[in-house]
Each structure stands twice: as structure tokens, then as C-alpha cells.
């Protein structure tokens, strides 16, 4: 009955949805000529089921089965012309000359009118009906990158998505969509895997030194890209409002591979090898060695000799003069350069991947079982991460109206040792020791004997630290759900899903007895248990009201429970040497624990009304009740309204160059609750003193009247496809205001608290995103795809508190402050500047050193002016070659590495003026010594006269150490992110050896910088994934360049 109406309405549109017409017309066909064949996806070779096959001249038609096969009998004589249609694919017509099996490969359509996308709550919607921007990345693009952290694999792929990574290739990565919409929140999108929201936090225990010494991966890095079928990004509140509280920062929807439409045995095997080496290691100077004032001689490495406690390179020239060194037992040996000493420390990182997946399906069931093991050794010696992923994806049609299923992912991460990060300090930091360094140090001599060292004042031998001072991580994670769908009646469906994400994460920190700075050694255990569960029921109804009007409504209910537990224990001094147990502690154990949980009840509903298949209106509403808010403010509601009009259809513009044109727009609001326990002000307990309990202020004044914060977003967009889908464009403009932000504002300590919780603050983000896809060349054998994306986001902090008392909110203060300042862009870098006169000249003091301005100023912003990417893919027959270039232009970064590198005299930039040969001035120093390393700081005295005081080069390069401005760099870069080459063997060839598919691929990641001004670092780097650690780099590990090779076999 319903079908008939549909047919009638479509018939009136003639050209539209022809496959449905065909379906209808085929009823009752009979025939004489038997035809058979199968249909596959041109790109993947996967079989396609449900494809419509229609005889052009006649009435007969059929669909492919779950294996992509069809059999059709027609009354028409040979040759027969077949029309083949499938949603999301370009229609094809073929001529069949005989009764032999035919294989038809369908090509995916770009911006096809009927493309189906996954929208909020996993609902599938025709893309044309959406009133907001979404962008999809296919699983194979993610797997091709061979990145071990999936966030890094997204770099440059999606307009408006910004990623930064922190530490080498074993660390964390951050993703932000459309700028920071929350002043204090984490700003990263919600990740949802097959309908189950999952955790992506980067866990570090607060207030524990050891907790920060490694840059632990963000939790979503647990995923194995091989399991991902597609990834869809909902870019803002408009798209994601139904996800509720956490949608303000967007949602990344991940669909894992299922067993549907498998051919052959359904076994896929994958073997990958990736080699990585350090790519962004800074250059060093190799003219002067360790010491101070041009003098050095080693006795004990801690001040016993001449400047041998100095961890700086202001010593003698590396001209082969004879000086006792750490490895020479007091014997003078040639003082010469070892230009590659730091580089030699790093190794080639090796990642091995072995994966196998078995998939199968029939009319009633489908399943996919995948197993993957990845072993990664890092560029820092003795670092290793092992990850095993087991996944099961299954559905079973238990009854014609009921489908049940379960998905499970079990992930075991076992890292015996992770590289020391910026905060590894003297016991574990890697780059710390190489930027505070003696340039003459022979790394090979250090490698021979870990107990000797070039400097004993501050450090232990770098190999000692790498091999003895280790940090391990063990993480066991389960992500899974059970679900069932009931088709109650025509158009009326009920869905239920209960899913969970649960993991334990345990870290063990060992510092060996005898380590400089920690002479007794220490042992720390830091353990976390994290869980989130969601149970959701959803009732939906689809109905054609009249010929021209269709509607979909749904309503649902969700209960979310989150819990967090941390248990930290530390033996600060080991009693018996090198026995790493908590009970082997000389001092009382330091311990802390923290538990939190929250629950949110949500009810939501949405309605979509379609008119004549060219105008759509979507309404959504959601009401949350959160445990984190006070009873009176606990329940909060937020709506959205979006719509789209298919202009090409409405105005009859199709045909000619224009295939498709659509405008869309909408307004949405998303509410967000607080963190647990932000209502009542509490007092902390400290270790009792002499039996007397200690209680003290938590220094945070909470707020019992907190209400939900809101983000309101307006978005409009335009999409078009031209020249037979050879060109497509998607433009989005958005304007989002986040108000009533729940801010734990840093306040003057004199207010009584370091932090107070307020419910104010407003931040505006507006921006433009453009995606462009072009196929400039296309022949039967060769195809060139060119994709561009471009995004600009402008943020502005409008207000912090309602009274206007607060002008700056400190997001983070690693050493410079990262602030949100009223009237400024988010993420301002705020710190000390040079003191300057009215003309901008730097003012120097009587000693000829630059003065710092008394007032701190904004030195830059970490947010870029714009970001974009160009991807080119060339396909010739079965060979595909692609290149991705991405750019981030504008924005600044503070480099703590540079601050150290200049101070310690290891940078090439410290060579000018260091002796006469390098342009140094001759002068007499305070001790009456004549020297040739004089430099005059370019500035003026307080009286305005030109500075003429000569500083020694050492004093000169150290003189700006406490002036943050000196170490601010332009963070712009253009990266050749990726070059990938792959070859898929033809089915015909490999069938002979019993295979269904064979693909070989090779990839290079982080190939080269095409442009950057901060030459000594990767300007994409950040300290970690928190808001306040962006725009700030200190002693970060170099980024790696990786070379990956992969073999994918299907049986």
C-alpha cells in the first residue's frame, strides 16, 4: 500500500529514483533468456547486495543477494541491455551478449542525491535531507596512513578539524573541530563507536610529579584502524544536538566493519611494517664544547674539574685540543665535535602489524571476527608498545521482525616502557639532557658504560635513564554493546542498545637507585579504572502523510553512567636498592586516590518533515537531567531546527553542467552539565602530622547554584555537484556562541581561593569551511582526484564574568600563561615581553642586557589564521598514488626548547659572535681579560642613547632567558603529510592462486616540511592534549617520519 503511493509520487517526478520505478515494474515478470552475474564495489571489490538489475528493453528486474549475485530471466533475446542501479553508486548500463557470468563494478557516486549518511544516534539519513555539514572519511584512508594514533590519521582530511600531536610517535594527539567552543572544557569531540560513546581522555593524575613524566596516549588511540569501515564527523551542535551535553564540540561517529556482503571465505589478512625515524630533530652547533667562559676540564662531572658540572656548551673550541673528558680517566684527549651525537641516540622505530578478520553472512546473520596485533618499538631506545585488538561484530535476524546483535572490542595495550616526555625531569626526560648538553659528548662512549656520564650534577647517562628508569603501561579495555531492533509495524520501529566502555590502566614508574637527583631510586604505581555505560531505547515512525509529504519521528530515552577511579602510590625512596615494590620504601608511602561518578537521564525526540523530496525540515529536542547539577537546575532542555532545500530539483536546474545544488541552514542549542562534585566546597586531608590530622582548603570555591552551560549555533551551507559529478563543492558558515560557561576561574589568591566556580563566560566562534572535490582527468584507465579543504575559525572571548571583574582566564600556565582574555581570540600566549621605547627599540640596562617590561603582554595566539589541505590521488589501472599536503597558517608557539637551546649554547643560532671568526668583537672583560667573543645587544638605554655595552657571547645569549617574547615563533607550516602508493591485483590474476583480493601498499608519512619558520621544532607539537598546553612546546621529542609497507590479502 505504502509502496504504491511512493511509486505514484515518484512517477510524477519522472527522472527521480528510477530504481524504485524499476522495482515496481518488474513485478510479475517472466522470461526465457537466463542471465547471471555479480556486482561489486569498484574501489574495494566488495560484493554489493540489494543492487537493482533491470532489463532495459523489458520489464524484468531483480536484486542482487547478500553475496552480490543475481540471476535474471528475460523474455528479450540476446544481446540484452541491463540497467544497474544502487544507492550511493553511479548507475551503469551494460550489454550482455551471452549467458556467461558477468561481473559489474559500480563506482561510488560523489554527492549523489541519494547518498545515505550516518547521522546522530546512528540514524541513517539521506544526505540531501540534512541541514548541517558532515564529512566522511573512509576506513581505507585511515588504515593507509599506518598511524598508531587514529587522531593523527585525521590530520588534513577534514575541513575544520585541527589535530596536534605531542611527543614523537608514541604520545598523545588532540583533535578540535571548529575551534574551541568552551573556555575551560576539553573541547575535543565525542567519539561514538557503533552507537557506543567511548572515552578519549588522556589520563594523568593531578598533583603527582611522576604522573606527568610520560605523555600517555589519549584513549581513542586504542582503536585499530583496520576495524573501521567509515568515520563520519558531525561538526557542531547543529549536527550533533541529539547527542546531548557533549555534542558542542562535535561528534566523531565510527562505524566498524561488519560481515555483510562477504565473498569467498571472507577471510582478510593484513601484514604491515612501518619504519620510523626522527624527522624534526633540531640542528646543533659543533664548534664549541661543554663548559663555561671558554673553559672546561673533566674530573667528576659535578664541579670537581673546571666547569665540569656545567651542562652547557660555552666551553673551549672543538679544535682537537687535549682535555680530560668523562671517558678518558683524567687523560687529556682530543676535544672534538660529534655532530651526530644526539641523532645517534635515537633508533629506527619499527611497527609490525598482523591482522586477520573472518567475516560471513547469509539472509539471517552476519558476523565479523577480527584480531590484530601491533608491536611498536620507538625511536627512543628501549621503548615499546604492544597492542592487541579483538573485535566481534554480529547481528542475527531472529524473527522476521526482530534483529538482535552484539559488538565487542577487547583491547590490550602492554607497553613495557614509554619514552620520557617534557616533564620527565632529570630522571627520565629525553630531550632535556640533549638541549642542556656538551656538544663534544661522544654518545658511543656513553653507550659503552651506563654508569659513567658527561655530567653528574643533574643527569644520569641517557642510556641509564632509557634502560633503567622505565615507565610501563598496561591497559585492558572492553567496548561493546548488545542491541535489538523490533519492527513493530510498517514504519514503526523500536531499537534498544546497551553499551559500555570499560578499562583499567596501570602505570609503573621505576627510578633506579643511584640515579642522579633521585639517589635512593623510587617506585610509583598509578592506576585508573574508567567506565561509561549507556542504555538507550528509541522508537521511530516513518510515514507518508500525503503524496508530497513524508515524515520521520523518533523519541527515545538514555541513561548514562560514568565513573572514574584513580589510585596512586609512591615509594619516594627505596629501602633496598632496585627492589621495585611499594613496601620497599624508606619513607612513608605517598598515596592518593580519587573517585568520581555521574549519571545523566535524557529524553529526546526528533521529527523530520520532507516535502516533495526537495525540502526538508528537522526538529530535535533533548532534555537532560544530570547528577552534577543542583536539584533546582538539574533538568535542562535544548532544541534545534535545521532544514535543507534541493535547489536543483526545486528550480528544475538539473541537467547541463549542474547535477545538484542544495542550500541548508539551521539553529541549534546544546546544554552541558558540570563535572562531578563542583557544588559543595570541600577541604582536603593531608598526611597527619605527629598524629594530628590535617585539613586544609582545597583552594577551590565551588558553587551550589551552578546551572547548565549552553552553546547556541547557527549554520548555513551550500552544496553543489557539477559536470556529471566531476566537481563538487560544499561550503559551510557557522556562528556559535557558548554562554553561561561553567568556569573554574583562576582567581587572585587574595580572593581566598585559587579557583572559584562561576557560571558565566561567553565565547564566540565563527568560521567558514570549504570542501572542494574535482576529477580533472578521467579516462577508462586513468583518473585524477583532487580534493581541497579549507577552514577559517575566528574565536572571541566575549566575557568571563557577568560583572566584568575578570579580564583574563588562565587556561594553563606551563611557564608562559595560556589565557582567554576578554575581547581577544581564545588561546592567547601571555607573558613577559622586552621593555621597549616608543619607537619599539628594546631598552637595555646598565649592563647592556635587555630589560623585561614590567607588565605581561599577549605575545601571540595558538590558534591558526586558517588551515587547509590538498589531496591528489592518481589512479592508473590498478595503481593508485596519492599525496596529501596540509597547511596551518598563522598562530604562534612558545618554544621552551629554544629557551634552553640558546641558554645552553647548543643551537647553531648561538654561533654568531662567539669568536673573532664568527664576528665577535674584541673587548676586555671585568677581570681584565681580553676576549674576542663580544656582542652588543641591539637596543637603547633608558636615556634613549644607543647601547654600546659589549657582552660576552655567553652573557648575550643568556640575557633573554626570562623574557618569554624571545622564544615565541610563528607556528605556520605546510607539510607534505603523506605519499601513498598501492597496487591491487586483478581478480582474474589472483583467482588463479586462490585469492579473492591482494593489495600491496607503501606509504611515507610526515615526508617533509614545505614551509615553516620554527626550524628547530615541529610547530604542530604541543605539550599534551589539554587546552592550556597548546601553543607551548618544551623539550618535546622530535616528530617521526615513517615508511610503511602493507600487504592485504582476501581469501
Amino acid at each position, binding site marked *: 500500500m505504502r509502496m504504491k503511493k511512493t511509486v505514484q509520487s515518484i512517477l510524477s517526478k519522472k527522472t527521480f529514483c528510477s530504481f524504485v520505478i524499476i522495482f515496481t515494474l518488474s513485478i510479475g515478470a517472466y522470461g526465457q533468456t537466463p542471465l547471471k552475474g555479480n556486482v561489486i564495489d569498484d574501489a574495494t571489490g566488495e560484493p554489493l547486495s540489494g543492487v537493482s538489475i533491470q532489463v532495459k528493453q523489458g520489464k524484468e528486474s531483480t536484486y542482487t543477494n547478500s553475496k552480490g549475485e543475481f540471476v535474471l530471466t528475460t523474455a528479450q533475446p540476446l544481446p540484452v541491455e541491463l540497467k544497474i542501479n544502487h544507492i550511493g553508486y553511479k548507475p551503469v548500463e551494460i550489454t550482455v551478449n551471452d549467458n556467461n557470468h558477468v561481473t559489474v563494478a559500480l563506482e561510488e557516486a560523489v554527492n549523489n542525491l541519494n547518498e545515505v549518511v550516518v547521522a546522530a544516534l546512528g540514524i541513517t539519513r539521506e544526505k540531501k535531507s540534512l541541514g548541517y555539514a558532515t564529512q566522511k572519511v573512509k576506513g581505507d584512508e585511515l588504515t593507509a596512513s599506518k598511524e598508531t594514533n587514529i587522531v593523527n590519521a585525521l590530520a588534513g582530511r577534514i575541513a575544520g578539524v585541527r589535530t596536534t600531536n605531542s611527543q614523537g610517535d608514541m604520545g598523545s594527539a588532540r583533535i578540535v573541530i571548529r575551534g574551541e567552543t568552551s573556555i575551560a572544557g576539553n573541547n575535543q569531540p565525542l567519539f561514538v563507536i557503533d552507537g557506543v560513546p567511548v572515552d578519549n581522555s588522556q589520563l594523568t593524575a593531578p598533583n603527582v610529579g611522576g604522573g606527568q613524566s610520560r605523555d600517555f596516549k589519549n584513549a581513542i588511540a586504542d582503536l585499530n584502524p583496520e576495524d573501521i569501515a567509515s568515520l563520519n564527523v558531525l561538526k557542531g551542535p547543529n549536527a550533533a544536538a541529539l547527542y546531548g551535553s557533549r555534542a558542542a564540540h562535535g561528534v566523531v561517529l565510527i562505524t566498524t566493519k561488519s560481515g555483510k556482503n562477504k565473498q569467498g571465505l571472507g577471510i582478510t589478512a593484513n601484514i604491515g611494517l612501518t619504519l620510523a625515524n626522527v624527522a624534526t630533530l633540531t640542528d646543533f652547533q659543533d664548534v664549541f664544547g661543554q663548559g663555561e667562559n671558554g673553559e672546561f676540564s673533566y674530573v667528576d662531572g659535578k*664541579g*670537581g674539574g*673546571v666547569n665540569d658540572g656545567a651542562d652547557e656548551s660555552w666551553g673551549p673550541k672543538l679544535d682537537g685540543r687535549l682535555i680530560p673528558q668523562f671517558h678518558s680517566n683524567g687523560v687529556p684527549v682530543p676535544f672534538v665535535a660529534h655532530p651526530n651525537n644526539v641523532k645517534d641516540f635515537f633508533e629506527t622505530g619499527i611497527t609490525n602489524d598482523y591482522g586477520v578478520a573472518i567475516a560471513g553472512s547469509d539472509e539471517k546473520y552476519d558476523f565479523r571476527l577480527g584480531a590484530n596485533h601491533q608491536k611498536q618499538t620507538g625511536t627512543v631506545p628501549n621503548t615499546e608498545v604492544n597492542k592487541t585488538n579483538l573485535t566481534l561484530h554480529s547481528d542475527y535476524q531472529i524473527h522476521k521482525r526482530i534483529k538482535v546483535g552484539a559488538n565487542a572490542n577487547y583491547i590490550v595495550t602492554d607497553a613495557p616502557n614509554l619514552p620520557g616526555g617534557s616533564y620527565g625531569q632529570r630522571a627520565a626526560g629525553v630531550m632535556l639532557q640533549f638541549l642542556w648538553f656538551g656538544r663534544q659528548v661522544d654518545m658511543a662512549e656513553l653507550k659503552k658504560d651506563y654508569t659513567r656520564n658527561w655530567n653528574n650534577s643533574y643527569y644520569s647517562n641517557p642510556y641509564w635513564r632509557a634502560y633503567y628508569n622505565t615507565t610501563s603501561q598496561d591497559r585492558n579495555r572492553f567496548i561493546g554493546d548488545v542491541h535489538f531492533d523490533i519492527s513493530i509495524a510498517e514504519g514503526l520501529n523500536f531499537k534498544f542498545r546497551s553499551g559500555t566502555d570499560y578499562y583499567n590502566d596501570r602505570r609503573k614508574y621505576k627510578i633506579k637507585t643511584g640515579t642522579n637527583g633521585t639517589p635512593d631510586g623510587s617506585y610509583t604505581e598509578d592506576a585508573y579504572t574508567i567506565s561509561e555505560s549507556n542504555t538507550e531505547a528509541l522508537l521511530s515512525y516513518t510515514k507518508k502523510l500525503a503524496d508530497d509529504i513524508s515524515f520521520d519521528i523518533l523519541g527515545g530515552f538514555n541513561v548514562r553512567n560514568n565513573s572514574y577511579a584513580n589510585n596512586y602510590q609512591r615509594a619516594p625512596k627505596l629501602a633496598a636498592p632496585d627492589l621495585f615494590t611499594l613496601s620497599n620504601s624508606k619513607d612513608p608511602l605517598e598515596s592518593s586516590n580519587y573517585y568520581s561518578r555521574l549519571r545523566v537521564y535524557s529524553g529526546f525526540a526528533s521529527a523530520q518533515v520532507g516535502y516533495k523530496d526537495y525540502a526538508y525540515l528537522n526538529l530535535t529536542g533533548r532534555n537532560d537531567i544530570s547528577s552534577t547539577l543542583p536539584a533546582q537546575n538539574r533538568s535542562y532542555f535544548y532544541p534545534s531546527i535545521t532544514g535543507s532545500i534541493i535547489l536543483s530539483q526545486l528550480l528544475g536546474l538539473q541537467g547541463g553542467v549542474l547535477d545538484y545544488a542544495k542550500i541548508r541552514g539551521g539553529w541549534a542549542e546544546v546544554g552541558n552539565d558540570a563535572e562531578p562534585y563542583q*557544588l559543595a566546597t570541600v577541604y*582536603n586531608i593531608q598526611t597527619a602530622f605527629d598524629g*594530628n590530622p590535617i585539613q586544609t582548603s582545597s583552594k577551590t570555591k565551588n558553587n551550589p547554584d551552578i546551572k547548565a552551560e549552553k552553546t547556541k549555533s547557527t549554520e548555513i551551507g551550500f552544496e553543489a555537484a557539477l559536470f556529471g559529478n566531476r566537481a563538487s563543492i560544499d561550503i559551510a558558515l557557522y556562528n556559535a556562541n557558548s554562554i553561561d560557561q561553567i568556569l573554574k576561574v583562576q582567581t587572585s589568591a587574595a580572593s581566598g581561593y585559587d579557583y572559584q566556580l562561576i557560571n558565566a563566560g561567553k565565547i564566540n566562534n565563527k568560521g567558514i569551511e570549504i570542501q572542494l572535490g574535482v576529477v580533472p582527468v578521467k579516462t577508462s584507465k586513468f583518473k585524477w582526484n583532487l580534493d581541497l579543504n579549507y577552514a577559517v575559525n575566528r574565536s572571541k572571548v566575549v566575557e568571563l564574568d557577568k560583572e566584568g*571583574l575578570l579580564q583574563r582566564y588562565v587556561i594553563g600556565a606551563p611557564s608562559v600563561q595560556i589565557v582567554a582574555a576578554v575581547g581577544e581570540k581564545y588561546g592567547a600566549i601571555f607573558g613577559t615581553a622586552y621593555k621597549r621605547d616608543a619607537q619599539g627599540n628594546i631598552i637595555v640596562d646598565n649592563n647592556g642586557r635587555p630589560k623585561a617590561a614590567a*607588565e*605581561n603582554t599577549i605575545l601571540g595566539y595558538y590558534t591558526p589564521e586558517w588551515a587547509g589541505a590538498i589531496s591528489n590521488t592518481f589512479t592508473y589501472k590498478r595503481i593508485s598514488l596519492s599525496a596529501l599536503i596540509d597547511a596551518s597558517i598563522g598562530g604562534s608557539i612558545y618554544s621552551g626548547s629554544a629557551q634552553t637551546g640558546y641558554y645552553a649554547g647548543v643551537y647553531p643560532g648561538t654561533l654568531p659572535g662567539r669568536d673573532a671568526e664568527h664576528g665577535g668583537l674584541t673587548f676586555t672583560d671585568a677581570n681584565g681579560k681580553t676576549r674576542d667573543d663580544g656582542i652588543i645587544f641591539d637596543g637603547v638605554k633608558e636615556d634613549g642613547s644607543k647601547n654600546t655595552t659589549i657582552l660576552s657571547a655567553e652573557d648575550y645569549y643568556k640575557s633573554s632567558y626570562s623574557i618569554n617574547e624571545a622564544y615565541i615563533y610563528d607556528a605556520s607550516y605546510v607539510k607534505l603529510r603523506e605519499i601513498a602508493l598501492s597496487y591491487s591485483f586483478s581478480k582474474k590474476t589472483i583467482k588463479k592462486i586462490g585469492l579473492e583480493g591482494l593489495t600491496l601498499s607503501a606509504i611515507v608519512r610526515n615526508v617533509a616540511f614545505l614551509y615553516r619558520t620554527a626550524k628547530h621544532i615541529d610547530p604542530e607539537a604541543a605539550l599534551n592534549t589539554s587546552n592550556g598546553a597548546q601553543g607551548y612546546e618544551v623539550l618535546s621529542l622530535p616528530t617521526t617520519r615513517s615508511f610503511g609497507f602493507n600487504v592485504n590479502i582476501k581469501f
Partner: protein
Amino acid sequence: MRNIILIFVALAAFSCTDQLNEINANPNATEKPQAAYLLTGVEKQGADLYWGTYYNLSSTLLFVQHWARIQYPEPDRYEFSNTSAELTTLWNTGYATLVTDLNTIIAFPNEEANSNYKGIAQILRSWVFLLLTDTYGDIPYSEVGKTLVPKYDKQQDVYTGLLDELSQAAALLDASNGSISGDVIYKGDVAKWGKLAHSLRLRIALRIADRDDNLAKQTIASLNVADLIASNDETFQFTFGSSPQHNPQSAHFDTRDDYRISKTIVDKLITLNDPRLPVYAQLPSDTSVYIGAGNGLSNSAAQNQGLSKTSLPGAYFLQPNAPAVIYSYSEVLFNLAEAVARTYISGNAEDYYKQAITASLNQFKITNATDINTYLAQPSVQYDAANYKRAIGEQKWIALFGQGPEAFTELRRLDYPQLTAGPASVLEGKIPVRFFYPGTEQSLNKDNHAAAVASQGVDLLTTKLWFDVN
């Protein structure tokens, strides 16, 4: 649509309020403070601050040249920024921990804290405010804890306010008002707290003496000497425990080797044949004479002095349970000597001066009467009525060894001994006379900070404070 959704969630809303409240009850900390616990916390954390790495070791102890840095001598050259922990810790801990916890005690209803708790809290709070104003100058005082952006009170008003507060606090104390627990310094002896209150009034009166002679005189004249700290047993000091609750100076040397005793004080002690030298300093491992390290040297010059060729601070100071002396009997006596010298009270200044030195020697376990008298008899040690500031200044400076914050303030006020900034120091030959306001104040309390700077002078280490006349 809203209504539809509300129906969906209404049931949950009604049935779950209690449950949600329970879920949001914080299991990690208590909402209920207790006076005794807060008091222990303030005493412990106050001592950690006053005797700690930042406020003492790497700032004031270097400024007064009691100690010197032999490694990483940047702080010894006064290379600080307004975010340096050395200069911000007093502010942050002083206000957000100490003053706030003490305000909590003061605000308790009487059932939860008797008036003795409140009197002690007010005395301790006055001590914290005194440290803050001595160090920064104009500070938030009258509006602390009352607004997000408290105004800065003038230093004069702070001192005057504290004199009043201490009188009020002393009046709250009476053994009959109830017992005190959690007091790890005076073990609940409120009489001793009363003596501390009056002794602090004496200290503050002298602070303002060069500016407000009348109030100083009036205050000190009203004091009864018998109400002051009257013996070394009554010295206000916090005695630390064992690791990790040990003395911060001791804790620092557990893992680091950055400090030596300053050449300035070693040379002075040698000149004076001072019996405190072996207490204040250790013999270097390579020599049998005491050798101090220079202040304010370049990194290489500092290191080249040799870790094994220079004297560590005395073992007395580096033992885990060494006390954090906050107000010594000896200081009371020096203050009385000065009060006499200023003719605020009658008496014999020289006697007080000698008693003060004797008390100091006793404090460091030098009790042999002959040795003490020999020391006192030296012309170089004798009281100088013509220049009491010199005599008192020098001896007080020696007596306050290790107690950087007080030594720093008295050095600025008395102007003796006259120290010279280290050769590589960066303040054009000057020694700091205050701390920067924390850089965060520029962000978080912008207008009030600006007003304070406009009133007091540029926010520099060399801007003199109101009390510091010369």
C-alpha cells in the same frame, strides 16, 4: 516537543532526585572542616612556607647573604620573573591556604571553635599578613576573601590594622574558654599564644618606627615586658618530624646540592670569632677551614668554587627535625634593645642587646658562660649607642641565620649590615628590597594591581616599600 520529552523524563526526575544527590556526593574530601585539623594544617604549612625552598632558600636567604648558590645561581643574581615560584609562593600559599583556613576557623560558630581557637587563628593570620606586607608592600588585606578582586590596602594601613587585630586576638585568649587541640607548636598553651601576640605587636611597632614614631612609641609603651616571649623555651618555632615531613632545608639536601653558606656571613663570623660558626657552617670536605661561597656569581664562577672546597650550611640546620624558628626569644630582646634606644621605653639598651646575643648563642646550644662573655667582651661585638642600628642590625642579622624572611625585612629596615650585591647580579648593583607581585595578579586582579603600582611605585624588585625609609 518539549512536553513530549518532559513526559519521557518526568518519571525519572521524580524518582531519582535523591539518587542523583547521592551520586554527586564527593567521596574524596569532606565538606565539613574542623578547627583542630585546620590549625595543625596552618602550622605545618606555614612552617613549610616560611622555612621552605621558595620563600627562604632561593630568595630571602640569598638576598641577606646567609646562603649562596653554588649551582644554578640565577636566583642569587636576582634573575626572577613575576611568575617565578620563589616570589609567588608566599602570596599564593599565604592567601589561598593560610589566611583562608584561618578565616574558616574565625567564622566557626562558637560550638565548633571556642574563642581560644579564634584568638590563635587571628594571631596566626596577623603573622601571615605581616609576612605579605613586609615582602610585597601594599597588599590585599581588608577585602581578602570577600570579593573576586580585592583591593590593595596601603602598607601603613595593614600594619596599623594588624596592631589592632593582635590586641583583639590576645583578648580572646583565656584558658577557661576551653581547650585547644591540634596545636603542634604551643600544645594548646594559650598563655604562650598571648605572648606571641604581644611580641608580634612589638615587631610591627618597630617596623613602622621610622615612619610613624608616635604609634610605634604608643604601642610599645603599652606593652608589658612580662607579656612577651620570655625564654628560648617560649620561642615560636615549628619542630619538624621525619622524612617526608622533615625540615624543608633538610629535604632539599636529600636530593640536591645547590647551596653553600655565604662567604659574607662566614667572613663576618670569622672576624668576630663567633662561636656560632661551627653551628652555622660545616667544614668543606677538602679543607679544614670554613669557606663560604660568593653570592651573585656567574654560573661558571659559582661552580668553580668547588662543591668540595666550600662550606655547607651547618648540620644543625640540615637535620630532618631542625625547627623552623619564626619568632625567637633573642629577637624579642633585640627589639627591646631597639625600643630603649629609640626611647620608647626605659631600660638599658646594651643589657638587652647582650641578653639578645646570649639568647641567640643559647638557642644554638652555646651555653659556656666563659665563651659567651669572651665573645661579648670583644670591641667588635659591643653595643654602639651612637649607631644602634649598626650594632643591632649586624647581630640580629647573625642571630636570624637561616630565618631568611625576617632577616630580609630587618636588613631593609635597619640598613645594617651593609651588603654588596654579587658581581654578576642583574639589578645594577642593588639588592632586592621587595618581591614582585605575582604575574597572575596582572591577569586576575588587574585594576587593583594597577592602582597599587600607581600608589606604591613600579612593580620592581628595587622599589622601596613604605616602611623602608633608607
